């Protein structure tokens, strides 16, 4: 980037320390050590989900099921309310000698809307819990990080972590036998 006017180099600050691994076995041992060292704001990146990594990272169970349960009950309730109100209260009609609010005939639509609301809750709940979509993240500043979606594994420790120290954390990560360690910086 050459220009005539004196350009201020953009100020950067450390954002993430990134360690690259080739092998899932090394990765899971490294993750356990990061967990035991007491880091909080850190993550593991892999091309596919790894069995046992949640334990190695000390993560609890996903809370998604509760969101879906609430949505499922909402779907069930809305289906019943819609049919009972429309065919039973607002414009009562008697079809086939059945009362305007006839429970057996409501079963299929109650079922379908329960499923529909659950599916929407699952999808949107998953995105919400994950904080996605998020197209800008300092981790994408690293060129090597793109390998995560093919065959590489990464451990990232964020500078926002209270224990983070550029020098000490870097030495800690290097002690975990990664193939590569990089400091990712973000512009301020």
């Amino acid at each position, binding site marked *: 980037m050459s220009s005539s006017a004196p350009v201020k180099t953009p100020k950067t600050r450390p954002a993430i320390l990134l360690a690259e691994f080739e092998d*899932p*076995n*090394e990765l*899971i*041992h*490294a*993750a356990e050590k990061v967990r035991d060292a007491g880091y909080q704001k850190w993550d*593991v*990146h*892999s*091309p*596919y*989900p*790894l*069995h*046992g*990594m*949640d*334990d*190695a*990272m000390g*993560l609890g169970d*996903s809370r*998604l*099921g509760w969101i*879906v349960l609430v949505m499922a009950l909402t779907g069930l309730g809305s289906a019943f309310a819609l049919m009972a109100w*429309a*065919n039973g209260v*607002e*414009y009562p*009609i008697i*079809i*086939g000698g*059945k009362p305007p609010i006839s429970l057996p*005939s409501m079963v*299929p*639509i109650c*079922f*379908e*809307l329960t*499923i529909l609301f659950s*599916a*929407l809750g*699952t*999808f949107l*709940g*998953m995105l919400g*819990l*994950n904080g*996605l979509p*998020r*197209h800008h*993240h300092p981790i994408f500043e690293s060129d090597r990080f793109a*390998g*995560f*979606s*093919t*065959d590489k594994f*990464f451990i990232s420790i964020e500078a926002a972590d209270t224990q983070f120290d550029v020098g000490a954390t870097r030495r800690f990560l290097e002690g975990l*036998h990664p193939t590569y360690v990089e400091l990712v910086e973000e512009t301020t």
Partner: protein
Amino acid sequence: MSDLDPIKAIGEERLLPAETTTKSITDMVSRVTETKAPLGWWIVFLSAAACAGLLGIAIGYLAWTGIGTWGNNSPVAWAWDITNFVWWIGIGHAGTLISAVLFLFRQKWRTSINRFAEAMTIFAVICALIFPGIHVGRLWHAYYMLPIPNQMGIWPNFKSPLIWDVFAVNTYFLVSLLFWFTGLIPDFATLRDRATNKVRKTVYGVFAFGWRGSNRHWRNYERAYLILAAISTPLVLSVHSVVSFDFATSVMPGWHTTIFPPYFVAGAVFSGFAMVMTLLLICRTVFGLQKLVNMNHLELMNKIMLTTGTLVGYAYAMEFFIAWYSGNDYEVYVFVNRATGPYWWAYWSMITCNVISPQLFWSKKLRTSIPVMFVVSIFINIGMWFERFVIIVTSLHRDFLPSSWGNYSPTIVDISIYIGSLGLFFTLFMLFIRWMPMIAMAEVKGVLPNAQPHHAHADEDHGHAPAALPSPAE
């Protein structure tokens, strides 16, 4: 070793060749979207797009002229429209079966074909949704099917199976779409990260939602996938059951049978697997994916077709048995007339294609022969179309009074719309295989041997004794 290794004692083999790596999977699958399309793709795409154009013209003519341009007339008020609707919906079912039911049963071989089958589901349901939409005649009133508040103060009749169908099919479409898209997010990230030009990077980047393979995300993602599979499983069984209620809750002889829901579901899975097979055999050859979709996968699919084909054959036999056993003259007449009346050729085409042709798969030699399975899969597609035609037209064309009898034959508009719907399906499918990862890369990678860490904690939810292997890292 790990739970992903084949169980040799029962003759299991590795799903994928030993030299397959996570890198080679990414390369094989992504390359299809990154290189120039082969000539075969253009030939199929352009002919399909031409047929889809025909669909547009035919529907335009139908909307302009009216439903009388179809061959339907009293007493055959439903004909090709509902035949095509049920046929397309049925085809969709295999996709959900492969992606959801086989997932819950931990059938790891599904990973090579599930993306493909889910795409097929979505496009088949799009084609299916056209038919109830246009068969109402005045297309601009199709919104009456939905519970939208309106100035007339009327609502749909929620006691009607036809409105159950509206909810079932639309739910099915949306849930399948969400399931498919959830699976695509990590693979879009792969294409984004491999992209060399800005347009690809931006477009795939938008759809990848900023996916960064984070384990904190995978945790919720895997739970989401499990929940979607768990709710899709009863959904897929319900959809074709509800479609069968359209018939079974009426009092028409030939329709009013309790075997319809399970019979329709088995038939749907049967026809869907046949369609997956037809498409898969073409695509793996055109795009050179024989390594990822190999004979193991094809043979397992043929076994499912043999099973469901036999179930369907049982249902055909049971319909006849119950007609005789019921002692109802009208019911008996409908079935005898199906096999020997003016539409005998449709009935026997159905029996030949659906019951007899899959029986070839009892032979290992035939079950593993590509030409045989291709021909049989086409036969099943044809046979399952005839099944719906037989159920609808033969039950209707002999009304209760001989004075009301009539016959049905399709018009050029009927035929154009059917061919057009095939065109639309293949157009969408061709665009899918060209621009999206047609094999679920992240899922296939996860079931490779050595893909998962051999770690003590890793085995606890599989009930195995911990495999205390020395770790190369230490």
